[in-house]
């Protein structure tokens, strides 16, 4: 894809994201106009002298909906980025934070910290869990005799199953009544009740871990023909792999601690993006992130508005949408290769 086409694509996706951010805030029990959203944001940034909407509506926009929509965007972008990177590193189109066991590990860490009464440290628990799961997955891959696409997935599935079992056991052992329900809904993936501090945490993680990963896009291209080819193109394969797995583990940990284990986004968004951009990561990664952000905003909006006043865990929607899209992607790949 040439430069003007690329610029047009990126600008359209940015516009889509911005429109999604504003429009998604207007969805909900209280009717809110897009202009009110703009003005409220303007007021909070000191651009308007007084609140344009009154205290209640301001709270709905600024405290209730905006952090959640922003968090959804960040989670979607982060999952898409992690998925695209893992698919490149393992040369396996099925790889994503879920299948490599990172999401399950993060869930285990987060639930363990939550049940131990340290709910404020949940992101830390999730990061530790994701990191431990990643280390174990890599260990299993080594025990199997080195990285191949199939081994990576088999190792990931085994670690994932182990972590999921441990999580279930923890919940069974110590959770009661309300916390049981809450944990279950969170495990299925839900952005319900996200507050500003959480939204900012995901955004910060996205910038801190996401930026270096984005910059490594070209080195990821070098992996197209495997590790040897990457090494002879000047990539320090071992260091880059650790660096990227560390970055994606950190990001996955934070994403899971805020949104639970939301599946399929990391898997399908990079594939959809690839259909548009081709496989060059310098282009693919930002496009996948923008696409993932808008996708997540709308699935989360659907999750909270479809069955009002009840909340559907957004993970259910992403799975319902994701599985068929994934099949379509597979069929398309089959035709090409």
């Amino acid at each position: 894809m040439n430069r003007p086409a690329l610029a047009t694509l990126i600008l359209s996706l940015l516009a889509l994201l911005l429109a999604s951010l504003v429009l998604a805030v207007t969805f909900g029990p209280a009717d809110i106009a897009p202009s009110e959203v703009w003005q409220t944001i303007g007021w909070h940034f000191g651009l308007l002298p007084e609140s344009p909407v009154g205290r209640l509506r301001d709270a709905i926009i600024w405290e209730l909906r905006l952090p959640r929509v922003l968090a959804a965007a960040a989670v979607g972008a982060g999952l898409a980025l992690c998925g695209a990177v893992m698919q490149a590193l393992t040369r396996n189109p099925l790889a994503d934070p879920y299948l490599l066991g990172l999401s399950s590990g993060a869930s285990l860490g987060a639930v363990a910290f939550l049940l131990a009464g340290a709910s404020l440290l949940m992101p830390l628990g999730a990061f530790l869990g994701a990191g431990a799961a990643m280390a174990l997955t890599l260990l299993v891959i080594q025990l199997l005799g080195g990285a191949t696409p199939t081994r990576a997935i088999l190792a990931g599935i085994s670690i994932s199953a182990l972590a999921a079992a441990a999580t279930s056991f923890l919940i069974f052992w110590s959770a009661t009544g309300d916390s049981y329900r809450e944990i279950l809904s969170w495990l299925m993936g839900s952005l319900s009740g996200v507050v500003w501090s959480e939204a900012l945490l995901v955004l910060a993680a996205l910038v801190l871990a996401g930026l270096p990963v984005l910059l490594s896009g070209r080195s990821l291209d070098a992996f197209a023909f495997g590790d040897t080819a990457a090494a002879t193109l000047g990539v320090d394969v071992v260091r880059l792999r650790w660096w990227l797995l560390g970055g994606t583990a950190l990001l996955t940990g934070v994403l899971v601690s805020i949104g639970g284990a939301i599946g399929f986004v990391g898997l399908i968004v990079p594939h959809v993006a690839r259909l548009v951009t081709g496989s060059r990561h310098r282009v693919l990664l930002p496009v996948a992130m923008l696409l993932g952000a808008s996708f997540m905003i709308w699935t989360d909006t659907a999750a909270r508005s479809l069955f009002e006043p009840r909340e559907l865990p957004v993970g259910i929607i992403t799975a319902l949408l994701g599985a068929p899209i994934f099949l379509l992607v597979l069929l398309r790949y089959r035709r090409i290769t």
Partner: protein
Amino acid sequence: MSAGLVVSGVAVELGGQAIVAGVDMVAPVGQVTGLIGPNGAGKSTLLRAILGLVPAMGSVSFDGTDLTVLPRRTRAQFTAFVEQSSDTDARLTAREVVLLGRIPFQSIWQAAPSPEDHAQTDAALAAVEMTDFADRLYQTLSGGEQQRVQIARALAQQPRLLLLDEPTSHLDVHAQLAMLDLLRRSARAGAAVLVALHDLNLAAGFCDSLVVLQGGRLAAAGAPGDVLTPALLRQVYGVDATILRHPGDGRPLIAYDLPG
């Protein structure tokens, strides 16, 4: 001593076994040097040792520069490698594959390939006569075309040292001849080309000199006409052969005596 690759005392142990056991050899700039020997002789491992892909003892230098201490990226700016075959699941066009060869020259802050990158890519595609295929998906190309694209990718690295591991094994006769002719032209244009080959007649026809490995050690080295003798083929490959001369240019032709 002419400019080029100088390998001395290179030894590689993998899993406690000596795969390459102290090899000395040279591959001068301007020439195609053929690396021959039976399966398991250590050809691939020697190439990997030269590329710094496996831990090795001994020294590897190019134009007097010790390669083993150079950063990977610097090395990739003048050393390129082509494998026996290269597969990918990535949806890349031929041009995008060739553009990969420019990675060692691009800074991480650079948003898009530079005009120089595009110029080198176009030149490399033209050199392998794949310009018309530039926008085809790599997977839709034939084996020979894919190998030509890989050579173009290697040429885009502007290599002074070009290493190839049996690049002709999956190609038909026409593609094999075209590939080796291309390597010879690359060498004449100012590169040291070291290519592992199985086909001794191809090696005899296109290589300026041959390096023969056997059991990880150097068995012979020199001009094809001097190296390829019935005695050597008997010793290294365990085959009986008659060496004929090509009626046109006098190069050695190996006619194998059939067993039984």
